[in-house]
């Protein structure tokens, strides 16, 4: 087990294809903390996540555990929304063993590791199954196992449950909470689901809409676990977040409304 690492975003700006996507974002995330980035589609929250993962060039500094991010690395695991990132030609176990193989872990030990992590995510019965034989929820569990086996200090999750049906999503939220408690990495979780962010996060960070998206507000979620949305405090936070996101959405609509006569 590896303890989480702190993440520091120091005045970061990201430009993609000449477009300023994110500008001057400052955020400090504590080791072992669960932070949700919340915002309407296209606000640049996934871009921030990709920057922490090391996929994008960034102006400003990103430090994980005090070390500057220069590119992708095993210390930062990524769970993607689309489970097409799994290798369809490998079994669940072989997918999980991909990281340990690169590290040079011996075959027997690797299989044992894979079994342990597949059991952790509740896939103990699917070790020899191919991704195509698994449901959407199971594939996301497999992605988590494949990431966690590397014992990353940071897990970056890009709307991991966005493509799942409502029931499966609820189950996965509970499961993720349990897995996070068992392994305790730092988690940065991107979502546009307000309820999801309240149920999971220690802190919820809302963002303004792009271009040049910024952090709008940071909210502590001081609720005991397990959480339910019927909690009055949760409901208060929900309406606050809904208002914040609503402001951003109507801003976009106004912008589009103003553009129309000019076209």
């Amino acid at each position, binding site marked *: 087990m590896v303890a989480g690492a702190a993440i520091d975003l120091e005045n970061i700006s990201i430009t993609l294809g000449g477009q300023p996507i994110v500008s001057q974002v400052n955020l400090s995330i504590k080791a072992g903390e669960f932070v949700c980035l919340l915002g309407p589609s296209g606000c640049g929250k996934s871009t921030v996540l990709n920057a922490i993962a090391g996929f994008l060039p960034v102006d400003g500094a990103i430090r994980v555990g005090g070390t500057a991010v220069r590119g992708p690395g095993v210390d930062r695991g990524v769970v993607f929304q689309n489970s097409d990132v799994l290798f369809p030609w490998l079994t669940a176990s072989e997918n999980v063993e991909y990281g340990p193989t690169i590290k040079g872990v011996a075959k027997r030990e690797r299989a044992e590791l894979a079994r342990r992590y597949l059991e952790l995510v509740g896939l103990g019965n699917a070790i020899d199954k191919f991704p195509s034989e698994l449901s959407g929820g199971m594939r996301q569990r497999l992605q988590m196992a494949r*990431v966690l086996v590397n014992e990353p200090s940071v897990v970056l999750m890009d709307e991991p449950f966005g493509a799942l049906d409502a029931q499966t999503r609820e189950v996965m939220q509970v499961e993720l909470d349990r897995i996070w408690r068992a392994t305790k990495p730092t988690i940065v979780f991107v979502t546009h689901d307000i309820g999801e962010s309240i149920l999971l996060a220690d802190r919820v960070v809302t963002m303004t809409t792009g271009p040049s998206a910024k952090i709008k507000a940071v909210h502590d979620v001081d609720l005991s676990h397990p959480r339910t949305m019927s909690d009055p405090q949760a409901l208060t936070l929900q309406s606050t977040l809904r208002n914040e996101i609503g402001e951003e959405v109507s801003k976009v609509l106004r912008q589009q409304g103003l553009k129309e006569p000019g076209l």
Partner: protein
Amino acid sequence: MTGKRRDTSGGSNSRTFLKTFSPILSVLAGLALWEALSRQVLPLFLPSPLATARAAVELWSDGTIVAAVAASLRRIAIGWGLGVLLGIPLGIFMGSSVVVRRLLDPYIDFFRFIPPIAFVTLAIIWLGPGEASKVGLIFYATIFVVIVSMIAGVQAVNPARIRAAATLGAGRLRILLTVVIPSTVPAMVTGARLAMGNSFLTVVSAEIVAAQEGVGALIWTARNYGRTEWVFVGIILLGLLGYLCDRLLRLCATRFLKRYDVKT
């Protein structure tokens, strides 16, 4: 209620009947049409199905068909095999490197529009009248389609899959070998199938000159003897062989490469 159910099952029965027998019916109808047309004209212009069948028996009993099929299949196997074996790595190389692609793109887009028959004379001058020129032409007919298919395959690899591998600790070479190449297996199968079609289209032109044996050679020889029914035997053989080779390829692909998401 019961009556209704019986009706539905009757409907699906007749649907499976149609599915199985409609190709057979269609072939029979085609043969009947051929027979009817052949009665209106001279045998040299259009031999009847029966005359063609008789010619097939004749060519079979003197060993011509077996020898022709063996010679043509051998040329196709070598030319197509080389085209696929070289086209796959070249296509992957071109698909993964923007610089290489920019350098080779004009050539690919130039040569893939020139049919192999345009190169028959050159092939004989450069490779001689023997097997090499025939295999060379088939190779030419296959390699470009494989390369083009592989470039598309490499470019269609989900970038997130590559990123995922990078965060799991894979370097560039490992990503190429363990992510990009396995992800392009469906493109390999598509390329190989298209190339198979091209090599059948080419084998007749490849055997136009100085071929003693081969299905194409049989067709060209028939011209010299005025045996139109031999031409028909050759044409039918080509169609059947192509169909069988494609079936075999598809069967192997679905049997052995299913886990690579190969859909045929």
